[in-house]
């Protein structure tokens, strides 16, 4: 596709050296723009590292395992935020992956053809809703409803589990997880759909030929063929979930606590930065916040890289379409 080479061997009229320079500078300009990507990755890592040097020096690796976050005595530890980020993202995955994969299956295998495009459009529009609007809706609609109905019901029916004990405030780890689930559903669904669509029809026909029912075909031929890709979609969703900021900040309760109960308020890496960055009173405080950003960046880049490599290695490269 992109290997056009200027025929240079039997050139009857040699292009003059004057006419070459615009071509060459255009090429260099394009290369420069493409290399900006690499520059940006380095820039992001370097600025976060530079901003957090004081804290890295002061606390060392203890920063990652200490759960003390005390701006008054200038002692900082990231554990409650790492915990909150991981737990809220896991809740989101537990909700979003089954729903997203089921929807993708519905769209590729079952839904009447007329219905498919409208549903896909709605899911794409859902992806366009800004985080802050989900947050607003979360504060005033979703959280009150969860508090008064869903959480109460959970507590009554599953209250024997330590996950669903303790007082119900409303803003909580579970509320944060649910809002993140809504936000990552579009990407999980659309990537899973790409994966399922890349399953060769031959695969399905072979299963039908063996006498499988529709559902068996889906289970045996489609899902098992697409299993790795779906896993990749889930990891990609996790990457998004980890970095979600505004909506989570608005509904998770923002308390640096590690609690077994999902009804208890939590705090994530992204939301502590969003809340406390402009209020950081000491240099060390600001450095600690930068280090939280560095931790967040490291986790998300790792997760995204894994997802991209997994999706890339599949035929068709469905991951390439996953914006």
């Amino acid at each position: 596709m992109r290997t056009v080479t200027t025929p240079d061997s039997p050139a009857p009229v040699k292009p003059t050296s004057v006419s070459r320079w615009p071509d060459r500078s255009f090429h260099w300009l394009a290369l420069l723009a493409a290399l900006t990507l690499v520059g940006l990755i380095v820039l992001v890592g370097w600025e976060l590292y530079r901003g957090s040097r004081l804290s890295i020096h002061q606390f060392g690796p203890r920063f990652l395992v200490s759960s003390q976050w005390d701006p008054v005595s200038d002692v900082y530890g990231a554990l409650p935020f790492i915990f909150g980020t991981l737990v809220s993202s896991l809740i989101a995955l537990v909700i979003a992956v089954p729903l997203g994969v089921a929807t993708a299956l519905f769209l590729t295998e079952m839904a009447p053809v007329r219905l498919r495009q409208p549903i896909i459009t709605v899911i794409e529009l859902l992806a366009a809703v800004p985080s802050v609007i989900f947050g607003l809706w979360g504060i005033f609609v979703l959280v009150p409803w969860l508090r008064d109905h869903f959480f109460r019901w959970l507590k009554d029916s599953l209250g024997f589990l330590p996950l669903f004990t303790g007082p119900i405030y409303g803003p909580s780890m579970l509320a944060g997880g649910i809002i993140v689930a809504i936000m990552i559903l579009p990407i999980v669904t659309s990537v899973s759909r790409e994966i399922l669509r890349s399953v060769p029809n031959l695969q399905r026909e072979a299963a039908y030929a063996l006498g499988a029912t529709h559902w068996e075909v889906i289970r045996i031929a489609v899902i098992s063929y697409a299993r790795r890709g779906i896993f990749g979609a889930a990891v990609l969703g996790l990457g998004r979930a980890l970095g979600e900021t505004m909506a989570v900040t608005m509904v998770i309760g923002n308390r640096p606590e590690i609690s077994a109960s999902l009804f208890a308020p939590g705090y994530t890496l992204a939301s502590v930065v969003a809340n406390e960055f402009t209020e950081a009173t000491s240099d060390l405080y600001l450095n600690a916040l930068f280090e939280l950003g560095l931790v967040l960046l490291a986790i998300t880049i790792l997760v995204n890289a894994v997802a991209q490599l997994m999706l890339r290695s599949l035929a068709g490269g469905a991951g390439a379409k996953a914006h």
Partner: protein
Amino acid sequence: MTGLMGLSSLLVIAPLFLVLYFLIREGASSLDWNFFTQLPKPAGEQGGGMANAIVGTVALLGMAAAIGVPIGVMGGVYLAEYGSARSNYWLRFAADVLNGVPSIVWGMVVYAMLVVPFKTFSAYAGGVALGLMMIPLVMRTTEEVLVLVPQSYREAGLALGIARWKIITVIVIKTALKGIVTGVLIALARVAGETAPLLFTALGNNFWNHSLAEPIAALPLQIFSYAISPYDDWHRQAWAGALVLMMLILSCNVVVRFVSRDRR
């Protein structure tokens, strides 16, 4: 089984309608002429609007486009026209990794880059933060549409002895222009709603911005600070602002759909 899957699809799409329903129910009543023409009022005073935030968002998007579009499009040109398969693999990988960088991190990076050295929050910093986020988005969509331009167009140009850069700008980019514009619009719609990168770059401002070197208001910032405030008046304003922002983003998406349908 089909029923269960259909039900989950319903669950997946329900939030969009719920969000839109509440945006209209709570926001539409506060949308009046004043909302689009007046500055925010202090807490407790009735009325006021978000005129400065709407203008601020437009200004920020303009600056973001000034950074993101040229670099993104040129990068896309490199990927589609010049790059070898191997370098493209890594460049695309880099673009996808950058797409995954949490938006709050962009805010911190630009804070360290532009706010600390100049000792002030500024509209420039906000625009740069959004612009940097746009680069990988625009680059990927540009590449995707450029490779769709038939190879024979380029060969025809080469056969006529036209310089490579002219072939790319006059023939290839022109052919794919609609697709590139679509990609730019999608990227703009995406960053228009971003709040986290603006929190400590553009900061927000309750008054008109007189210089881009000063803090500037933006719709998402205003929605955020009003939503977490304790005042009912401000909550109503937040809903109205969210409705306006949502309409802005939705209309971008509708235009995109219209344009890309036309292309087929």
